[in-house]
């Protein structure tokens, strides 16, 4: 547990976020670990979350479409059922009146006692009737049976009476009329034997109609009511009553069958409207049946479910994001640590190689100085001998010659010391103009003796047209030294080493170091720049020389390639910029 807690800060803010070891940069596999980390997280997030979100959205769309379709269908079915009920209510009563006028003649119906008897029977048989009256063709009420005394009233100007004259039957809108109580008039026309007509009129209670409609009202978000064709409410509406008893939603267009549609109420809330224009078989009516449902109410269950799904999705996304971030951070950090370790090893190896070069140099210098020193020793010893053994003094030309010999040997030592100091200065990291010819000559000079002993021919061909190149002296010297060393190790006595330089365009110079030694097999050719790769016997080579050379060439913004054939020799080609751009210097 403590181990996990200790690793937590590194997982949240790993080391690659604060990588300031710029000297390791040339050896890293990935140059920008923060970018790599960001890209990894981004790609993993996209791969994991985009399909999840897209599928959820598609699922929402499908569910919503299917709910809408189902809701429209159910609203239409409800409107259709309610329409049938209202139509049946009106047709039943119209049919009763038609039966009465066909069964009884005018004289029977105008008998008040008889009419009252008929009303009582109709009430028993059908119910919902308030009164019954017979109206003559002049519009005057002749006989009345019911609770109000309306005998002698003139209905000739009433719209329902005029309609009844035209269509033989009529159903009025709901109105208050003479009795000041909302009611519906249904009436049928019949002919008298003398050719005149009369109208049998019944008044229907609106309560029965309202009850019938209410029985179809389902749910607290649904409303069912009747309006006339001007939008005036005929039965009460729970939610949609506007000014002057008019419905406050748009009147639907005429259709001879039941329909359902989507719309919005005056607050902009989505609603479903089912409607039907009601006509009876005997007479048309001005009623429109309206079924209005609030969509939000109908969708509530789905919206609640969707809210839960959204929560689940959100929490899942957060967990996925955390897991991806932590995993990516840990993984990238592991790669970074491994890469860093490799880079540190490379830097250490480069340092070791530099030290080895200095050691090699020191050994070379010691060897070179030793010979003049031996000569000094013998010559000085001889001078001493002349004094002690031969007893000769001044004016002896032989003595002068030997003193000159001592001075000459000292001069040789001085030359070697100067070279040593010059070489040491070349480890400076600053760029400076360098004459490639001088540098190659310096390096070859270190191998001159060995070349003489081993009878190795060294050809240097660096044209004078090669300009001074602006680069790091120490690193370039080490590159050339390493490659020449490498060639010397690869070639047998009597072989040759060829060092050439040429310009590649105006900005680059190409240095080729070719030998006719043992060469490198094809299998090994692509591995020669890998660290610790060596074909030498254990303990004889570290396998770092060429990989360090590779790193140094990269540091100088150049590149190095190798071509080789087994038994025919090897050519290393180093291409370097004539001038390292200042902003690119590391």
């Amino acid at each position, binding site marked *: 547990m403590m181990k996990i807690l200790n690793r937590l800060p590194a997982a949240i803010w790993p080391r690659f976020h604060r990588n300031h070891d710029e000297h390791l940069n040339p050896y890293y596999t990935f140059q920008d670990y923060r970018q790599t980390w960001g890209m990894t997280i981004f790609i993993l997030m996209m791969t994991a979350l985009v399909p999840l979100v897209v599928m959820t959205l598609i699922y929402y769309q499908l569910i919503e479409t299917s709910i809408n379709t189902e809701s429209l269908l159910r609203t239409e079915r409800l409107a259709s059922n309610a329409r049938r009920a209202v139509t049946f209510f009106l047709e039943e009563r119209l049919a009763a009146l038609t039966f009465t006028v066909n069964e009884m003649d005018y004289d029977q119906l105008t008998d008040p006692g008889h009419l009252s008897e008929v009303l009582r029977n109709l009430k028993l048989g059908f119910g919902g009737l308030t009164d019954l009256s017979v109206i003559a063709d002049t519009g005057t009420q002749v006989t009345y049976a019911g609770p109000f005394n309306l005998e002698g009233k003139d209905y000739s100007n009433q719209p329902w009476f005029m309609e009844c004259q035209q269509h033989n039957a009529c159903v009025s809108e709901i109105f208050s009329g003479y009795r000041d109580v909302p009611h519906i008039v249904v009436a049928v026309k019949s002919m008298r034997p003398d050719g005149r007509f009369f109208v049998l009129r019944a008044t229907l209670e609106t309560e029965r109609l309202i009850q019938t409609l209410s029985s179809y009202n389902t749910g607290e978000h649904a409303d069912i009511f009747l309006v006339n064709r001007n939008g005036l409410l005929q039965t009460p509406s729970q939610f949609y009553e506007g000014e002057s008893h008019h419905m406050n939603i748009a009147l639907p267009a005429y259709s001879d069958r039941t329909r359902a549609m989507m719309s919005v109420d005056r607050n902009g809330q989505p609603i479903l409207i089912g409607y039907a224009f009601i006509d009876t078989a005997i007479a048309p009516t001005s009623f429109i049946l309206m079924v209005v449902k609030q969509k939000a109410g109908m969708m509530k269950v789905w919206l609640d479910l969707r809210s839960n799904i959204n929560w689940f999705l959100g929490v899942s996304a957060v967990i996925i994001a955390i897991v991806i971030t932590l995993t990516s951070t840990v993984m990238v950090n592991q790669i970074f640590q491994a890469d860093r370790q490799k880079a540190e090893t490379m830097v250490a190896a480069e340092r070791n190689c530099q030290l080895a070069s200095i050691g090699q140099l020191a050994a070379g210098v010691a*060897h070179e100085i*030793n*010979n003049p020193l*031996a000569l000094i020793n*013998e*010559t000085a*010893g001889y001078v001493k001998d002349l004094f002690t053994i031969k007893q000769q003094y001044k004016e002896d030309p032989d003595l002068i010659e030997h003193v000159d*010999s001592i001075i000459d040997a000292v001069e040789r030592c001085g030359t070697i010391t100067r070279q040593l100091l010059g070489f040491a200065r070349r480890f400076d990291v600053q760029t400076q103009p360098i004459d490639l010819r001088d540098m190659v000559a310096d390096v070859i000079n270190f191998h001159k003796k060995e070349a003489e*002993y081993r009878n190795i021919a060294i050809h240097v061909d660096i044209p004078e047209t090669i300009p001074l190149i602006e680069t790091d002296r120490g690193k370039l010297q080490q590159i050339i030294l390493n490659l020449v060393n490498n060639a010397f190790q690869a070639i047998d006595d009597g072989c040759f080493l060829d060092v050439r330089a040429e310009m590649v365009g105006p900005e680059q110079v190409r240095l080729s170091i070719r030998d006719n030694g043992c060469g490198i097999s094809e299998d090994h050719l692509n591995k020669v720049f890998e660290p610790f790769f060596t074909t030498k016997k254990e303990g004889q080579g570290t396998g770092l020389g060429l990989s360090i050379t590779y790193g140094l060439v990269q540091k100088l913004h150049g590149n190095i390639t190798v071509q080789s054939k087994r038994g025919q020799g090897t050519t290393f080609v180093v291409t370097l910029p004539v001038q390292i751009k200042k902003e690119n210097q590391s």
Partner: protein
Amino acid sequence: MKHFDLLIVDDEQRYADMLAKRLGLRSLTCKVCYDGRTAIDIIGKESFSVVILDLRLPDFYGTEVLIRIKQCRPETAVIILTGHGTEKDREQCMACGAHSFMNKPLDIDRLVAMMARIKERSS
């Protein structure tokens, strides 16, 4: 024919000459040559009690000359005198029959003493 006490083989001419002169002052007659091939030729013709031999010669490595000398004149004592002798060189030379292995710069008194001992032993 003049008999020389010793042969000096060294590619550094002035060093070889100087050493010869110093030994000459100490009553030791020296012949000097500057490469391996000449040394082997001389050894084939003349006998020396001591050969002072450098390891790095322009044509042969010192050990090769040493082997030839020992093949031709096993009685000759060969003193290796080199400027940069390693332990490995020393072991190799001693294995090939060198009398002793000395590094430059040289202590001449030590060399003279050593030659006196060789002379004493051979006589």
